[in-house]
Each structure stands twice: as C-alpha cells, then as structure tokens.
C-alpha cells in the first residue's frame, strides 16, 4: 500500500475537534477526516454519492457517518453504504508529530 499511496500533511490535529469531521482538499480530491470519540481517525471521500451532500458535516458514531442532507449512512471503515447508496472512498490516515497525514493513491 505504501508504494502506491502518496501522503499529504493536513496541518495540526487539534484543528479537528473530537466527534466531528472537517473537509480538506487534497490534490484533486476532497477528503473528510473524522476524529472518533476514542481518538481514532477515519478518512473518507467528502462528497456524498447520493446528491453531493457535505459528508464532513455529518453526525458520526464509532462505525458510521450520516450525511446531513438526506440521512444516508456510510461505514467509516469501509465506505460502504448501509442505505443502498454507492460507497464512499476510504483513505489511510494517521497522526505524525501532531499533524494529520492522509494517504491517497499516487
């Protein structure tokens, strides 16, 4: 995986409040990064496949994000929809030196 991905730094992790998501433009993509309550991070594509809703504004729990526009639900770990929509993309994300780092296919 490391060979095919390119890592991008998105700034301090403190800009991302616990339990919420923020959207980041990375190269040509928009990525929504979420900080779960247990501190783990998840990154998925930021645009809802249903009708373009802003995924980063969605409510989350440990497993899913719910798009704010029509409440379609997607698994954060796999991107799969639980409500019959096409999936979101999933990206690897980690913290390095207090900075958010996501990996996108190079």
């Amino acid at each position, binding site marked *: 995986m490391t060979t095919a991905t390119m890592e991008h730094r998105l700034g301090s992790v403190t800009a*991302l409040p616990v339990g919420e998501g923020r*959207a980041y433009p990375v190269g040509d993509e928009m990525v929504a990064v979420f900080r779960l309550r247990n501190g783990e991070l998840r990154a998925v594509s930021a645009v809802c496949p249903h009708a373009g809703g802003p995924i980063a504004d969605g*409510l989350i729990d*440990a497993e899913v994000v*719910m798009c704010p526009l029509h409440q379609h639900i997607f698994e954060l770990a796999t991107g799969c929809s639980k409500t*019959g*929509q096409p999936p979101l993309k999933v990206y690897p994300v980690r913290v390095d030196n207090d900075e958010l780092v996501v990996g996108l296919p190079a």
Partner: protein
Amino acid sequence: MERLVVIGNGMAGARTVEEILERGGRDRFSITMFGEEPYGNYNRILLSNVLSGAEDEAGIFLNSLPWYAENGITLRAGVRIDRIDRFARTVHADDGSVTPYDKLIIATGSRPFVPPIDGMRNPKRGYHQGVFTFRTIEDTRGMIRYARDHERVVVIGGGLLGLEAARGLQQYGVAVTLVHAAGHLMNSQLDAQGGAILRKSVERLGIAVELDARTNAVLGKEKVEGVRFADGRTIPCDMVVVAAGIRPNTEVAELSGLPVERAILVDDHLRVLDEPDIYAVGECVQHRGQTYGLVAPLWDQAKVLADHITGRNPTASYHGSRTATKLKVAGVDVAAMGITAPEREDDEFVVFAEPRRGVYKSVIIRDERLVGATLLGDVSKVGFLMQAFDRGLPLPEERVRLLFDLGGPATEVSAAELDDAAQVCNCNGVSKGALVSTVHGGVKTLNGVMDATRAGKGCGSCRSLVAQIVEWAAGGEVEQDPSAAWYVPGIPLDKPALMTAIREHGLKSVSAVFDTLAGGKEDAKSKMGLVSLLRMMWGDEYEDERGARFINDRVHANIQRDGTFSVVPQMKGGVTTPAQLRRIADVADKYRVPMVKLTGGQRIDLLGIRKEDLPAVWADLDMPSGYAYGKSMRTVKTCVGSDFCRFGLGDSTALGIAIESKFQGLESPAKMKLAVTGCPRNCAEAYVKDLGVVAIEGGRWEIYVGGAAGAHIRKGDLLATVDSPAAVITLTGRFLQYYRENANWLERTYSFVPRVGIERLRALIVDDTEDLGEGLDSRMEAAVGAYRDPWKEGQEPVVPGQFRTALPLRSLPLVPVRAGNGAVTGPVPAVGSAVAGPSNGGAQ
C-alpha cells in the same frame, strides 16, 4: 466458467439473476448485465409513489450498485445493447464494445406506447418539451420538474398508469384532466358499472375525467397549449402525459433475427424458440400466445428460467400465469381477475354496488368455478377469491359469502384459509408460505418480516393481509416491535424510562448517556434526539458536545440542498423596522445572497449563505437568531391587531411579541410554530398552529393546540378560553413544557395532542387536577432563563473550524446521462458543486 450475459437490468432481469445466484449460479457463471438505465435495478411500480412524493427515489432501489459487486456481477449500467450476433455468440453495445456469451438472457421489458397524435413530435426535435411518458425514473423526474411550474395537465389513458400519473401530478398543484378513449376507466380490468364507480371516486379526488375521447392532436407550437379530440372538442393545457399502454421492447431481438410476434416467442423453459442458449423473460416475452404487463408473472418465469439454466431442474416448465391483480390505484383498492362480464347464457353473475362509498363487487361463476371477479373500494375478500380463481376451489352455496364475511371470526379464518403457495405481495412476489417460514424462523415482528421478505414494500395494498398472516403464523405471539416505543433507536428505553434513568444517574452529556445506558455504544441516529432531551432536562447544566449536534445546531443555520445555509434573523411577531430592513439589504448585497425570501412565519430568509460567511453575516446583521433551523420554538405569527385593524378585538401583535420574547429558541421534540390572531377571521392562521391564540369578544382569548398546516393539516383543539394576556402566557408555558417533557422525539403537536387527548390535557394543564402546574411553571422558567442568542458564537467559535466549509470545490463525476438521441452527454452537474473560494481558509 460459462459466460452469462443479461440484456436488461430491470425487474425481470435482476430477479432472474437473483434466482440464479440462489441456485449456486455464482460458481457456474461469470455474469455480465447490461442496462440502458444508468443505475441498479429499482422497483418500477414505486415510481407512482415517487411521482406523488410519498417516497424518495433512493428508497425504491431493489439492487444497489454494491450488490452487483458483492455478487461478482459486472454491471454495465447506462449501456444499451444494439444487436446480438447469434452465430458469433456476442452482443454489440452502443459504446462499441463486443461481449461474448455462452448463455444469453433477454429481459428488455416494455416501452410506452404512444398513439399517433398530431403535433406531439417534432421530426427534428423529438417529443414536444411539454409531453411526457411514464416508465422510468428519468420520466418521473421530468414530470415532477415540469409540473412544478405549469398549471394544467392532460393525462391520456385511463388505465392503471394514467390513473397513477393523474393522482401523482395533483401533488404539484396542477389541475388534472384524465382523458380516456374507451367508455369506462380501467376497461381491461373492470366492467362498465365498476368503471363508473371508479370514475366517481376519482372525480371526488378532484380529477376531471373525459371518456370516449380519442385525442388526435396536441396543440401549440413552442409550448403545449391544449389537446384536440376526434370529435373536434379541445381542452386547454400546458402539459401532456401519455399513458396509453405499453409495447414489448423487441427491437434488439427482431434486428438480430430472433422470432418475434407481439413479443419474443419463448417455450415453456423461457427459451427463445429454436435457440438453445438464448432465454427471454419478463414483459418482452410472448408465451403460448400471452404477453403480460404486471410483475406477478415475472416471478414465476424467473424461477423456471433459473431452474433450467442452472440445471437445478431441467424439466422445470412454465405454463402461463392467470393474472389476478390486486392494486392500489390512485388511492383506491382494486382487485380484478379473469373475465370482466358474463359471456355465456348460464354464467352466474353476482353484483353488489354502493356507489356512494365507492364500493363495487362482482363475481362470475361458470360450472361452479370462479371465472371472474372485480372488487373496488373494499378488497377484504380478495385472498379467498384469488385462490378460488387460481385453483378452482369449491364455492359456498350462498354466493353472497364470496363478497362479504357474514358473521363469524372473519379475518383470522382468511389468513388460515390461504394456501401456502398463494401470493400475498404481488409487487415483490412473496407467498404466504414465505411469510410463514420467516416467522417460524424466528422473526416475530411485522416490520422484521417485511424487511426480510420485502412483502408489503411495494404498492402497500397487501400490508394488512401481511399483518394478519404474521399474527396467525406467530400463533398470536406477534411481538410488538420493541424499538418502536424507544425514544431514540440506539437506547432501548421509552421516553419516561429514559428520563428517569438520566435523572437517576445524573447523565448530563450525550456520551455519558451512551456510556451508562448503551454499554458505551454510540449511535449517530440517536444523537440529535438526546441533545434535545438533555437540554430540556438540564438547561444550563447540560454538558455540550459539539459532535453530538446536527450540523444545523453546530452552526445555527439551516443546511440547504446545495450545502449552503439559510439565515433567518429574529423578527418578533413579524414586526420589523426600516433600520433592520436596511441592514438586511446591506448584508444581502455584501455577501451576494442569491435569494431573499419572505417566510411563512413572517420573517426574512437569506438563502445560499456559505458556512464560512455565517459569523460575519451575523455580526453585520446584528440581530438575534430566529431559530429557523432547530427543533425548537420557531416564531409567533401575528395579525395587525387592534391598533390598526378595524376588526381587531385584542392586541394580537403585542401579545405575539410577548410570547415570542418569552419562549424564544426553546428546544422541543419537534419544531413549534405559534400564532396570535386579533379576531376569529384568523388572519394569522392560529387555528392551524402548534399553539394558536384567537382574540374574541369581551377581551377574551381562546387557546388552540395541536393544529398543523404542513404536509398534514389539522385544526387545533380548543384548550381553554381565558380573560387576560397574562393567563395566555401562563397556559402557553405550561402546555409547551408538558409537550417538551412528554412528546416523543420528532412528534409534532398534531399527533401528540390527539394521542394524549384534549380532555386530559385540559384537566392537567388548565384545571391542574394532578398538581403538575407549579412544577411545569418553574421548570419552564428555568429553561427560559437559560436562553442565550446562539449567533453570539460567531464572535468566538466554540471549536476550531466550526465555520469551515465542507463543500467540494469542483463538480462531481456522476453517471453519464443519455440524451434523447442516444448519445452520452457529459456528467450531470452535481447539486452543490459550484462553490467558489478556498475550503481551507476561513477557520476563524
């Protein structure tokens, strides 16, 4: 592995593939499906509901895109097959691709039949832009879009489709005329008398009906201006829907040299005549001279085809379907089977008609066998009749028993009476046996069974029968869906129990509730409801967690379909000043607000504001939030009142402002809209508000509760008549607090008030029979005291990036759409894509 190619990804194609997979087809075939429509398979029947707005497009999909991938199917959505090469065993698609097959299934369905009518088509431009057919999602979207800003529609065709189209289009405020060439509606299913009664029911819905009217021209060059009938009469209209029947889609088969008469000819194994490796299924086939236009026969065909192609049962054969239809057409229950009128001298014909109630029932009996039946408006006997028709069961001596249950324990018997093989849900092809085995397999709730089998999820006409069967199969042990009573889905407690637990454990944050009452398991769907409840219970002491709030409550504005927000400043009682208006105008200019709109609650809405601009917009407005986004007290609408109005009996404006000032921003289980009107002329619409106050003679005021005038319309119930504005405010506070404490999440007052009962509410709130008054008053005072204008957060965001955009910067790649000429055009512009400005800026 053999290569299986399927042409047509509709109801028959996809169902057949499901049946093949169920018979181990995944190990035997590598499957490729071609579908001209650019999506997964959806339930075409439910397009009627999409048109009427009863269902969302997203809700009608039967097979989502991931389903294909999970089952190893290559889906080529949006690709049309032009030709089959039977000798090379390949299919040729319109994108130039050539795909080889070992086995081929044709499931191309039907297309709308459009009779030759002058002026409908322009040889160069195709259909007139105001003319529609009704077959696909695309058609449905087109009609909805067009109906919204047009006024009169003529629907051509008085069969099932035409009736559904007429009913659906009414939702958009267009006047609808249904035009039918035959002498009565639904003439292929109903006899003349039944048709006449249906006509009455349809007219009662406000749909005009023209019979014996053969349309021969659409009038108007640029715009549709009307239609003309063969007898010369014309009807003005600006939109035309053609629902005059369907024709099997046989073009590809014909071009490729396969045998076609009215449809593609198949044998009893659903194999195309003389073609060992090509099958056909669904509306595109002709079997023993019959073609079908309903889904029930497809389910039988799909099973036989799957048995045969997988070798599971090489002798499986299809002998045709006796079509008995049970439908809900334009809201009216209709069931029909067999012949519609007696044909022989000694056919017995038993008829009951009650036109006033829209009920009509008839049966036709020949040699002691049921050969035809029609039920309209009351289809309670359909279960038995369908079976009798299907299997030739012996009939009761008293023929009237075929039409009515005469005494005795009626319904239980009919659930027990039904044969296991009897089809209960025609839309999704579910038999009684399938329902029973699901129940015996351990699913004991109605919703559980419906989810597992899809029964009842089509037109809905079978739901009560499904419920009866589930109850019968569970031996009376149907479990109430326990979760139905829960306040939120993620915590197994109803509201009173949840409130007690929260109080006992002193839970003041959403995460504390999950930790203590749900074993630490968070649930996204439950968060909003919990935030509202905790804020109501704890007021100032509530421990806020931003992530638990819905986006609207994180940024105090209402998210719009394109991801921008709407901003509505407070304007108490609908009263404003020139200075405020000037400021609003300046803000609208400065931020280039795309739309400024007056709301129904007498305020001004600034629509299309970017999230990152919200704090600056609020600062410039320098007005408090109008709470147009939350589950909270929204606004108090008023009329001009006694100061200026000639009729005013009480100063409604002043009282409205006082009420709004007192209860501003109060959170509640659902939104609350209030009004005060200065006389019973009701200019402020107080009778249809969650709480409405009406001034009457003698300086007195009436208080109505539980009214609504949204999707649901209800006149409020009179709670009390009082003597002073102060008394109005006290009772308003008590009622709102009682509602806040006792209503379920998202339960509007129009369901809450009838649920509790107005007498009981009056006793509790006005007469204070259980001494609740003081407590309600003091808890309400505490809540009111905790009010803070949320727009002040603009000055100092609570969390980093609170107002940072989450919108994409570019248009989104979507499935290509197809223009009328068959060429692929560019991607559909996505909603909410065209947003300027950097997304990483603006984190104030």
